[in-house]
């Protein structure tokens, strides 16, 4: 497999832009990434566009507006991991030798408020079972029961991420919040208050991937010759295994661990108590592909759809032990200046979540961190970075980058 390199990244800020069309946002991000990569028209052989609600031919509209069509253009949907799915497809098409350079972008223009997910059946909506935050809340409550997480921890995740959002001009929320303010924001679904939930919003992000110039076994070591080079070591997408009742797959029922067993990835039966989540499946595979482990990571962007989701991701990604999320967070390890800073972009809690763009927005942040270009948000000496998105499906995308 050939080595894949990030040649350029670009963003349209995440936020609300009533006068900017979805296509226009995409154009801004795509042109920025292409410019940074030094790639012109005809310089990429395929394009993947992540979007959940963009509609038919979303990617074509963006590339059509700038006269850059002709190659395969595929719109990719994998819920909140759409951008991760697009990146996975792009990366493997380069690694396998099919293409030299591929454009990946994500775009979204979500309405304000609770997402009316096309995932639910009408009767589920009528029964009040389509309240997405309620599922988040149940997961948060379970995490509080099993992992020593408190409501104060949840509030402090928000404080941590929002304090970084202040430093990110691509973020939607750029003001500091206190623990008390978070806890006194409107209760949405116990234990989640409004500010513990990210806002669906609008934005775009783009990444140009290219085959690394040299193909030798030590190609990964030629970095010295290209100061700003960032390698994509792994881009993995996984779905959930049947069994659990909570998690982003949102079934109506699930099995009890003690009762029986569920099905493993290879079709074999394993005990549900040890059944890995979609995130864990993706992370394990990504670590293996990249040849690194959680202990090698310097900076992480993970899915903070809600504050508890960030803490759960710590466990699922192996950043801490199972059941250890609360204690791990309490050490301050994931704070700015901690051992493994998480969501230094401000996270989705600061940036908001334009579904199709959010995963690539993480990658943009991490590439800037690995290049030392993250300005006030810079994590000193960051060398290895991980991006994680997970969403409805379930879909989980994990990307590992090395500067």
């Amino acid at each position, binding site marked *: 497999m050939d080595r894949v390199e990030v040649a350029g990244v670009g963003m349209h800020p995440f936020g609300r832009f009533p006068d900017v069309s979805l296509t226009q946002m995409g154009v801004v991000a795509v042109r920025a990434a292409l410019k940074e990569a030094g790639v012109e028209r005809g310089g990429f052989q395929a394009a993947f566009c992540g979007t959940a609600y963009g509609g038919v031919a979303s990617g074509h509209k963006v590339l059509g507006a700038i006269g850059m069509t002709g190659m395969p253009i595929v719109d990719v949907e994998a819920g909140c991991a759409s951008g991760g799915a697009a990146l996975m497809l792009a990366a493997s098409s380069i690694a396998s030798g099919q293409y030299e350079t591929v454009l990946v972008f994500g775009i979204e223009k979500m309405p304000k408020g609770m997402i009316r997910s096309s995932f639910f059946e009408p009767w589920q909506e009528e029964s009040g079972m389509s309240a997405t935050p309620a599922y988040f809340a149940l997961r948060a409550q379970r995490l509080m029961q099993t992992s020593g997480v408190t409501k104060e921890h949840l509030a402090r995740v928000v404080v941590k991420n929002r304090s970084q959002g202040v430093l990110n001009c691509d973020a939607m929320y750029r003001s500091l919040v206190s623990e008390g303010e978070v806890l006194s924001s409107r209760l949405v679904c116990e234990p989640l208050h409004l500010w513990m939930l990210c806002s669906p919003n609008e934005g775009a992000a783009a990444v140009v991937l290219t085959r690394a110039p040299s193909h030798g076994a030590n190609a990964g070591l030629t970095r010295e010759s290209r100061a700003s080079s960032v390698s994509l070591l792994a881009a993995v997408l996984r779905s959930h295994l049947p069994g659990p009742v909570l998690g982003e797959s949102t079934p109506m029922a699930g099995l*009890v661990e003690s009762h029986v067993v569920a099905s493993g990835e290879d079709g074999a039966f394993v005990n549900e108590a040890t059944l890995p989540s979609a995130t864990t499946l993706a992370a394990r595979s990504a670590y293996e592909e990249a040849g690194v482990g959680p202990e090698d990571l310097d900076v992480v962007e993970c899915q903070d759809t809600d504050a508890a989701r960030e803490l759960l991701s710590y466990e699922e990604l192996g950043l801490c032990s199972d059941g250890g999320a609360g204690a791990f967070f309490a050490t301050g390890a994931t704070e700015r200046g901690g051992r493994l800073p998480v969501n230094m972009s401000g996270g989705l809690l600061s940036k908001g979540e334009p579904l199709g763009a959010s995963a690539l927005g993480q990658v943009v942040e991490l590439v800037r961190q690995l290049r030392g270009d993250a300005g006030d948000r810079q994590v000193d000496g960051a060398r290895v970075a991980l991006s994680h998105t997970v969403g409805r499906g379930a879909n989980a995308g994990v990307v590992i980058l090395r500067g």
Partner: protein
Amino acid sequence: MTGVSSEGPLVGKLAQRAIAVTAGLFEMGDPPRLLASSCNECGQPHFPRQETCPYCSADGCTDIELSNNGTLWAWTAVTSAPPGYKGAVPYGFGVVELPEGIRIVTRLTESDPARLSYGEPVHLEIVPVYQDEDGRDVVTFAFAADASDAPVQGGE
């Protein structure tokens, strides 16, 4: 089934004019029943019913009725109406564990999370959600705490 939730049990009060939110999910009798199946191959129960096992992919499942009594495993309350929902808020929402080894995502009749606790015994009820254009109660399934015989109007 003697529990009386704060939303009120359905039987004898609404049954004549009640319609299920969808067919095939539950029976409105006394007692009401959730309609589930059990896989002939792996033996796992699943809800709602379907012909193929959602756990082992085998065809061939036997219809079963789930126990009406279980324990509370996770809970919250929804405080503002989600898209497409025509009923009142707040309402309880959670996961109930049944002796068959299955956990069910469900409405809860108790909408104050502070009044519920982990492992608490709960039972099935059929509850009205909203009235349709013809004035009929559209009903769905929910679980109620066994202990909540005479609920206090807590917090309201």
